[in-house]
């Protein structure tokens, strides 16, 4: 049984098919990449999985359970966490409070405040933000705000983590650090599904890549297969 499985997932915005009849599956322990040109439907697919949007047809199953159309907070508590393409930290809360929110609300089992704080500290440390944990999130650099989003998502105790363009806007050093972070997340036994434009990153860390174009899945395979696929090259570079 795959960890996450989608069958015939479809979402229209007006007459435009943002995601059309897409089948996908993510296995436990994988790092899967989702790529495609701008407007291909990558973020929409993430929104459908995380409950921000409801598909018009198709089903999404998580650990065998149908989660199609559930509310975002319910999906989060079932074990799917996400980050956002444009960072959405809580700007006036401290770094630690941001992560604490994830611990306090993201799990189905209750926590005492002391225990929750301890766990929040652990995740702040995991992404390397301990030195700035008392600062308001708005004062962090973009790279650190993205790390904070990852820590907040991890604090909800996910089985599956959706990363939406985690590396966009980062410089080469920060990209390398972020790749290292994704590898460490995988080592925690957390499955990762990531939208990414930085090819070096996606080729380097993914087991498997799914390619979307105009809302449809046009290719799927290992990084080597995708890099040499004629259809994918045509989509990106034109014929």
């Amino acid at each position, binding site marked *: 049984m795959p960890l996450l499985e989608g069958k015939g997932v479809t979402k229209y915005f007006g007459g435009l098919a943002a995601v059309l009849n897409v089948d996908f599956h993510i296995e436990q322990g994988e790092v899967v990449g989702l790529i495609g040109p701008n407007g291909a439907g990558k973020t929409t697919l993430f929104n459908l999985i995380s409950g921000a949007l409801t598909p018009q047809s198709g089903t999404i199953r998580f650990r065998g359970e149908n989660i199609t159309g559930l509310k975002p907070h319910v999906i989060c508590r079932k074990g799917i966490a996400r980050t956002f393409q444009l960072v959405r930290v809580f700007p006036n809360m401290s770094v630690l409070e941001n992560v604490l929110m994830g611990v306090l*609300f993201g799990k189905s089992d209750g926590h005492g405040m002391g225990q929750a704080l301890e766990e929040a500290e652990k995740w702040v440390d995991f992404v390397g933000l301990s030195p700035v944990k008392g600062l308001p999130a708005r004062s962090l650099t973009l790279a650190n705000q993205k790390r904070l989003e990852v820590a907040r998502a991890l604090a909800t105790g996910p089985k599956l983590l959706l990363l939406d363009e985690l590396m966009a806007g980062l410089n080469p050093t920060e990209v390398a650090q972020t790749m290292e972070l994704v590898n460490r997340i995988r080592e925690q036994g957390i499955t990762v599904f990531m939208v990414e434009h930085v090819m070096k990153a996606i080729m380097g860390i993914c087991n498997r890549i799914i390619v979307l174009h105009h809302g449809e899945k046009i290719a799927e395979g290992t990084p080597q297969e995708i890099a040499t696929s004629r259809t994918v090259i045509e989509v990106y570079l034109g014929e």
Partner: protein
Amino acid sequence: MKPGNVNLRKLWGPGLTFVVLALLAAFPLYASAYGLILVTDILMFVILALSWALFSAPTGYVSLAPAAFFGVGIYTSAILGKQLPLPLVVFLGGLISFCLALLVGALTLRLRGIYFAMFTFGLVELIKHFWLWYEIRFTGTRGRFVVVVDQKTIYIIMFVTFVLLLGTTYLIRRSRWGLALRSVGECEEAAAHIGVNVNILKTITFAISAIFMGAAGSVIATRWTYVDPYIAFNPLYSFMAVLMAIFGGISNPYGPILGAVIFAYLEEILLTRFPYYYMLIFGVVLIITVLYLPEGLIGLVMKLRKRMAGGQDALA
């Protein structure tokens, strides 16, 4: 910074609160008749401003519905005041407001920004006109007389309502519930995606804030002796609650309290001393506040304290 310093500063707020509450509790023992009426009025505005801030300050949802719940409380008193003892009437006023707010909140809290403000404003007008229609159609009169209660009882019940509101505010702010409310104000979408049930959270908190507005209406109605829908559902009470809270500052609960006390007292003074210029002076004070004190009076107080603390540290 010395640890003794920090402790003193932490005790300053609760200590002052305790002293003021003790003075207020004993107030009927030494107050003049006029003083009692004045302070009851001020407490009423404090309740409106503070309960408004309970929901709207952290979430950023600007509600213009206080007058609706206040009016519901007033009419609870007007209808049930003769049959039931006042504390029970006030409790029912709060309860009915709570239920109405639960219904309204469930329907409208998906609206954001200006749309939510507009809807809540419309709610006051809707209830006012519906009630006017009902009264004329079914009772044949526009207004009602409210049972008269002595000033001391009115004061005590208003004071108890205020203390309960203060306790509720404190508990919510201190808990994970308060943290969740802030997260909704900061980024609602992110809050939902990390497991906060935002709709339930907003609706319940909105309804809890309505309890105190309704209770305040139920108490004060007994002093007004006559009410009609135009008096009870006057949108001015919504605006007053919002203005007082913003004037005082909404970053912490002392702000709305301070704002309401000064505003209500100023209104009284201006109204009696300068009846012709009262609205004008009021407007000027308000404009100055908005222009020069964007964080309200409490923002100014905190800035001054920080400056004084900074000076002390520099000397030491």
